[in-house]
């Protein structure tokens, strides 16, 4: 199958970050970057699909500054065959602007599947995949945890709160991937060496108009202090009541 996977370069989620002086963005000093978590799951999903279904091609597509090359190379060292880098000095917050550029690059390339992560770990919007699907007039399934592809048709499972939903869709399609399809592989040394020789095509991103932007970024309010409801066995009934009625973790 011919599969495209769109990946985003995002700040490493393991690092603590601080808000920059402009009050709108993250302080980038000492920041490290990685492939957004769910996007990496999507790369893994694409590789596994082609490993299971015989020869195919996996293209990773990214939009961002020159340094995005690191993440595209990493995806190729995992096993993707080639990469497309849509260059832009900055990645806008507005998913519609990004989707416009991606759809422009993906259109007419006869991909069987176009995969995205469920959402980016920085903005958490989860809109780019569906917007690309809309623009390309393709069916779209979001938040997939299990996937099977048959003749011209796919079956996906989505884990909802309290239920698992199974859906079918025709190919080509746009899918956004959750965890559950398999942990992303660690690239082998051979993969790292091989990635250097794989094609990486660069072209300027045709961004759409940016209509949504961030005006302020503030840390979340401090968590309310803990409460001590009592001591020993006497405290248990009250604790159970609070867990059930207030925290709603018991039913």
């Amino acid at each position, binding site marked *: 199958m011919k599969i495209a996977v769109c990946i985003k370069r995002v700040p490493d989620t393991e690092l603590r970050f601080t808000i920059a002086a402009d009050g709108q963005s993250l302080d980038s000093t000492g920041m490290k970057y990685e492939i957004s978590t769910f996007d990496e799951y999507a790369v893994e999903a694409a590789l596994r699909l082609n490993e299971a279904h015989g020869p195919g091609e996996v293209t990773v597509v990214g939009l961002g500054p020159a340094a995005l090359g690191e993440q595209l190379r990493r995806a190729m*060292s995992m096993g993707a065959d080639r990469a497309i880098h849509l260059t832009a000095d900055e990645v806008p917050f507005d998913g519609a602007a990004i989707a416009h550029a991606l759809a422009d690059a993906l259109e007419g390339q006869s991909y069987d599947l176009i995969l995205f992560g469920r959402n980016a770990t920085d903005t958490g919007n989860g809109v780019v995949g569906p917007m690309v699907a809309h623009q390309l007039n393709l069916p779209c399934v979001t938040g997939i945890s299990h996937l099977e592809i048959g003749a011209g048709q796919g079956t996906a499972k989505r884990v909802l709160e309290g239920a698992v939903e199974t859906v079918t869709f025709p190919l080509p399609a746009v899918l956004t991937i959750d965890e559950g399809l398999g942990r992303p592989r*660690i690239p082998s*040394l*051979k993969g*790292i*060496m091989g990635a250097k020789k794989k094609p990486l095509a660069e072209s300027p991103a045709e961004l759409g108009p940016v209509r949504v932007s961030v005006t302020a970024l503030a840390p979340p309010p401090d968590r309310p202090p803990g409460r001590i409801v009592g001591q020993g066995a006497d405290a248990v009934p009250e604790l159970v009541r609070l867990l059930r009625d207030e925290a709603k973790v018991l039913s």
Partner: protein
Amino acid sequence: MDESLYFEEQHHQVREMVRDFALSEVAPVARDLDRTQEFPWETIKQMGELGLLGVPWSEELGGAGMDQISYYIAIHELGKVDASHALTLSAHTNLGTSPIVEFGTDAQRQTYVPLLASGQVMGGFGLTEPGAGSDAGGTATTAVDKGDHYLLNGSKIFITNAGVGEIFVATARTEPGKGSRGITSFIVTKDTVDIDRCRAVGVGHVDALPKTPGVRAGKKEEKMGWRASDTRELLFEDAIVPKENLLGTLGQGFVNFLKTLDGGRIGIAALSLGIAEGAYEQARQYAGMRKQFGQAIGAFQGVHFALADMAMEIEAGTHLLYSAARLKQAGKPFKKEAAMAKLFCSELAMRTTTKAVQIFGGYGYTTEYPVERMMRDAKVCEIGEGTSEIQRIVIAREILGKIVR
């Protein structure tokens, strides 16, 4: 540190890859392995698949086709999480495989290196004997020429991978009375002691590899550190070693293993520095978390001083390590620099881990936190592949050689 002095782009990728592997696969099992002394065949198999058991060898020989620096980076990163894994890698690659790559014939290389580089079997190096430790030229194991083969008798002690491994380079005396010039290296093979586990896991044993009759592993050592690394005797009892298994030239065994040890010292430096950094990072985090007297202990000047010294020494050790590695990579002389890196980094590992346990207080002395294991793992870095005293002798010979005779 800004590694761009020493690293190229690919080195950053190797580091990230090994770090991912160490954190996701090795860190969760390290504590248990230390307790049980078990050899980690599952993670070793993964290391083989990732190319980590043949980092610097060419792709034709089944290696990853990377350079020496990449290899030392792999040891360094693994060492931050678990010294035993790092040591297994180092003994396998440098001690077990590099002599065959460097001194072997084409036929020897084709026969043994692909099996080792892919991680299908583990390798090791038998030099040390009960009576020949620091004085490795005192080899007493004998190899007697019997026409079409050599007959080996003797015992090697403290041999890393001796039990788990199948391919070894070992030294024996081919000419009595000729001192260090009467020593020759041989390639010997034996079955792994873990055949059943190896068959289940799918690596570690190759039936088709002919085994040397009369070679076997002795008892496993109970150790203070490096406990998930396999250390045993390697015994030769009328071992029949075919002539084509002679490695290098007759009588060149001593000269050759000194070269092998030079490279190995950079590996132990990388391992030591890894342990030191692992312990330092643990201590740094803990200093920010642990509160006494109403504040984080990291706010006390006494703790600042300890952490500042640790950070400074690690920075210095990093320069020594990668500058020695760069010299080796460039094909320049590196004997003195390798000994300096090994000496400095191993002693620094001991100092740093001791300080880290101190910063953790009583908690650091329990197995709940990894710093006590790191402290135990650090000690042997001052002993293996030449003790600290021997490193000082090597350095002194290099700096005084032409002046004092």
